[in-house]
């Protein structure tokens, strides 16, 4: 009985250690630029936590997380542009890029984003709500597996194309040039460090939520749906609802990650959210171990770090490496790096991917 009643004091220690590294060590040893990069990677890691939940635990291959990432990012960017315009030209002023594009009147759908409260609520609710609707629409009709993967991928493609066509959202160029973040100057290094802390805090919170979901009865149920969806339905559960919860949670994480990403990186454009970036979100998750709690986080950090360092020296070599990583890790090591440690400990592989990093 112990195995699943035992609380894990290790969890606390783990969180404490992670917090110490993120909040204490990293700012000490990294330059402002490198810390900014790390903050950006932490945003990708937040997305990865959600993918780990939906794909690793729930079996839903979400090839379209760029949609939710993009929604959060654009919602935040709209607020930052509004605040910027208001600061320079008074409330209700038209953001600078619209002036240049010849748009004189503020489009009606922009107006509410002058309010920080509305913006934060929208970041939390809009993508999540959209995910719930879409999830129910497809899962209730038992669209799953490959069908779901392709649909979510097409969604990412359609969303990017839709954004490119919207001049009032910056079109292909996207939104950039943010000066203030809720009243703070973005060019101040102290405030940039603050953004890093926010990203780190959000990541820890996302991991904590994912941990709770995994340990709860819901987490067992989600795994059950992944492994034998029909069985779950014949036990009287509505599997669509169970999947939708995980899908919507992943969407929420992606949205918040996007919202934090925008002030850190200073731009969001359709190029960051289309089909290819959406699939790239999966690479780190697969490498780290899709079904584990921390595998996706560490995998995402490692992949983006490698991309930044390697692509500086070997731009075309990095593309080969990316391709090979997809092929080798997923074909030969579906449990990711986490399954190596599990094998080393001689835990039966069947349960190892699910438990190893918890």
């Amino acid at each position, binding site marked *: 009985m112990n195995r699943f009643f035992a609380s894990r004091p290790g969890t606390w220690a783990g969180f404490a250690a992670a917090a110490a590294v993120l909040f204490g060590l990293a700012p000490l040893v990294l330059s402002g630029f490198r810390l900014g990069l790390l903050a950006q990677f932490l945003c990708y890691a937040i997305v990865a936590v959600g993918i780990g939940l939906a794909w690793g635990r729930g*079996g839903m*291959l979400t*090839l379209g997380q760029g949609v939710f990432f993009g929604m959060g990012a654009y919602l935040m960017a709209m607020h930052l542009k509004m605040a910027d315009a208001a600061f320079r030209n008074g409330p209700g002023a038209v953001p600078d890029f619209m002036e240049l594009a010849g748009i004189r009147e503020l489009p009606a759908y922009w107006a509410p984003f002058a309010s920080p409260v509305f913006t934060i609520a929208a970041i939390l609710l809009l993508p999540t709500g959209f995910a719930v609707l*879409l999830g129910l*629409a*497809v899962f209730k*009709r*038992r*669209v799953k*597996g*490959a*069908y779901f*993967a*392709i*649909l979510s*991928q*097409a*969604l990412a*493609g*359609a969303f990017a*194309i*839709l954004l*490119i*066509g919207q001049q009032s959202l910056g079109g292909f160029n996207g939104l950039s040039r943010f000066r203030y973040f809720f009243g703070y100057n973005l060019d101040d290094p102290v405030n940039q460090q603050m953004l890093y802390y926010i990203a780190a805090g959000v990541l820890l919170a996302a991991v904590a939520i994912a941990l709770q979901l995994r340990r709860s009865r819901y987490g067992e149920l989600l795994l059950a749906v992944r492994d034998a*969806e*029909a069985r779950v*339905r014949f036990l009287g559960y509505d599997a669509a609802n169970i999947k939708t919860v995980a899908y919507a949670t992943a969407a929420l994480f992606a949205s918040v990650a996007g919202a934090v990403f925008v002030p850190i990186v200073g731009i969001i454009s359709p190029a960051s959210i289309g*089909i290819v970036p959406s*699939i790239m979100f*999966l690479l780190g998750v*697969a490498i780290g171990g899709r079904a584990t709690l921390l595998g996706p986080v560490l995998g995402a950090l490692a992949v983006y770090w490698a991309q930044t360092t390697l692509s500086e020296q070997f731009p*075309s070599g990095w*593309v*080969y490496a*990316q*391709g*090979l*990583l*997809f*092929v080798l890790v*997923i*074909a030969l090591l*579906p449990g990711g790096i986490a399954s190596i440690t599990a094998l080393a400990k001689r835990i039966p592989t069947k349960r190892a991917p699910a438990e190893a990093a918890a």
Partner: protein
Amino acid sequence: MDLLVGQLFTGLSTGSILLLAALGLSLTFGQMGVINMAHGEFIMAGCYTAYVVQQIAGDAGVSLLIALPLGFAVGGAMGLVLEALLIRHLYHRPLDTLLVTFGVGLILQQVARDVFGAPAVNVSVPPALRGGVDLLGVTVPKTRLFIMGLAIVAVTAVALVLRFTPAGRRIRAVVGNRDLAETAGISSRAVDAGTFFIGSGLAGVAGVALTLIGSTSPTTGQSYLVDAFLVVVAGGLGRIKGAVVAAVALGATQAVFETYSTASLAKVGVFIVIVVFLQLRPQGLFTLRTRSLA
């Protein structure tokens, strides 16, 4: 009136391009449940086959005639290798196959970039296919008529092979019931390899044909892939008939949206139509109804 005829034609023409790109997928995805994201790169390989043949043969007409069967062989061979090295070992993990083949696609794209260079290369259109034909008051480019014809030939050939040859019967038996076919002494492994060969070969043929209207660059295949998948999803698994109807319907939907709004919105419109459609027919247009566990 002219515009309407033009639209009708455009729908058919776009549909036949989609169909060429999707026909091979319909076989591999439909029959084996394997999602081959490198299918687009097989199309791209077909394009470069046409390019290389033209560099050697010189004459555009002769080289097109050589490139069509050769494109089939090149695409098919790549498919066989992929099947034997990777896909065969992943049949029970279709979603992983998707990601693995995405990785393969990345590599193939970069190979094309390193071998042929990143800029687009030019494959000349044979003089006989240049210009257009006046039909019902609109000028129809001959290249598009050729592609329509090729699509019809390809579909007919696949249908005939499936229906009348021993190999085709074996393929259909495996699709119908893999286990039963195994017990009847059909090697599903050989059938899978054969299916993959034909499906990938069709991608190569599509690539050769597409050089007539589009550009040939390392990313050429990608642009067709998502649409091709949507055709297969909307058409239903394992049904050539479904792929044909879905391709033409999607082509027409796109053409209509494009006329009355912008091309960007047309893409979004097509996506919405498909999601709504899947609400009505979750398993696509035509489905094989068999006893199965949900």
